[in-house]
């Protein structure tokens, strides 16, 4: 779950009030030992809540720092991670490198401006940015806004549910593995579909879509939604 990105200097990370991965693992083991020793000798665990938080992916931590604290260093970190990928992604979609950079700029500014729309319970940072990138691409290509579903209204003071956020990260890791295990030809079709190069008729005739994985993700997404909607109506 914790993906340390190459090139990211941990020591200079202003957000890094969390242990390194190795420390974290040993701490987890220590906690288990503590739990076992409790039977013999009751002991108080230290900081069990912040322990959970340390496992968010870097992208989630950066995005939350941008959303909640308007943290520019975190935004710069998001830029370093996503801008080159976005550029590659947009060029793959058939856009010239120069125009691709304009779209990257648009997308990055939108991330900053609409950060309050980011909800880690519902979307991974990459999924959220993907959606913004698709919108900007359409807005520019068609010169009209892409119709978007109504945003879900949420209780603003609702406490973040770390287990839900981590659960979503875990699912995404599984999705990533499922996509990585596809045959190259299948993988290519998926890429084309999600780059927007296939029509819906073409997508419906493709058999390579990892529908099983998507379906399980939908089930979990529905559980989360019901949970959230229940909170709203109470």
């Amino acid at each position: 779950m914790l993906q340390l990105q190459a090139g990211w200097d941990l020591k200079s990370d202003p957000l890094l009030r969390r242990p390194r991965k190795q420390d974290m693992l040993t701490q987890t083991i220590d906690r288990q030992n503590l739990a076992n020793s409790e039977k013999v000798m009751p002991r108080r665990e230290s900081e069990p809540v912040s322990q959970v938080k340390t496992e968010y992916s870097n992208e989630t931590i950066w995005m939350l720092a941008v959303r909640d604290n308007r943290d520019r260093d975190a935004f710069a970190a998001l830029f370093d991670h996503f801008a080159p990928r976005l550029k590659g992604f947009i060029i793959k979609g058939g856009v010239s490198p120069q125009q691709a950079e304009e779209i990257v700029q648009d997308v990055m500014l939108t991330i900053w401006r609409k950060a309050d729309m980011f909800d880690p319970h519902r979307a991974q940072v990459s999924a959220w940015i993907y959606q913004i990138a698709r919108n900007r691409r359409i807005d520019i290509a068609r010169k009209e806004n892409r119709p978007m579903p109504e945003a879900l209204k949420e209780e603003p003071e609702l406490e973040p549910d770390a287990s839900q956020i981590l659960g979503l990260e875990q699912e995404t890791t599984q999705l990533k593995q499922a996509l990585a295990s596809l045959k190259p030809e299948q993988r290519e079709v998926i890429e084309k579909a999600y780059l927007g190069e296939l029509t819906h008729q073409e997508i419906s005739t493709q058999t390579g879509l990892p529908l099983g994985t998507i379906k399980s993700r939908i089930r979990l997404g529905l559980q989360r939604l019901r949970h959230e909607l229940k909170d709203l109506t109470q």
Partner: protein
Amino acid sequence: MSAITHHVPDAILAAYAAGSLPQAFAVAVASHVSLCAHCRAALEAHQAVGGVILEDTKAVAVSASLKDSILAQLDAPFTPEPVYERNGIFPGPVMEMMQGRAPRWKKLGMGVRQDILSADAHGSVRLLYIPPGQAVPDHSHNGLEMTLVLQGSFSDETGRFGVGDLEIADETVEHTPVADPGAACVCLAATDAKLRFNALVPRLLQPLFRI
């Protein structure tokens, strides 16, 4: 919400997520998703796939100046796009198409009314108002059509469609939807072809009505 039984097929949802769905259908899909938790979850799953593809994309170096240029713009003033809320039976994306106004109904005869929200060579989006027992103006044999029920219900050879249900029909489906008894049926109809009626209005009058 739980009563919705006709959903967006996966391929269409994937195309919507990827931005390759024609604009008229994107309005219908965004409107259905606004009303349907099931399809919202499904859409989020497709966006998660897109996110993984984005994460795995080979990075292409950006110009040295891009980062500073963006960082310098973070404080620049900007006008947020207006957000259109749901109003009565009309979901946000429909309100956006109407730019917040109420429908401007035009009579089509037999009590049927319509409001064309957009129409060009790539397709059209319009609202239809159909009194109970009347046939829904049918524009099949002409590309794909999506009909989203916003009020009341209609039935045809393929089943019954209530509020939130999305019917998708192509030229292979010869159907005659009829509004059910009770409240008048109001629906959003989107097509990717130039509009054409089989009934109600003679072909000659079509240019006049832009249908």
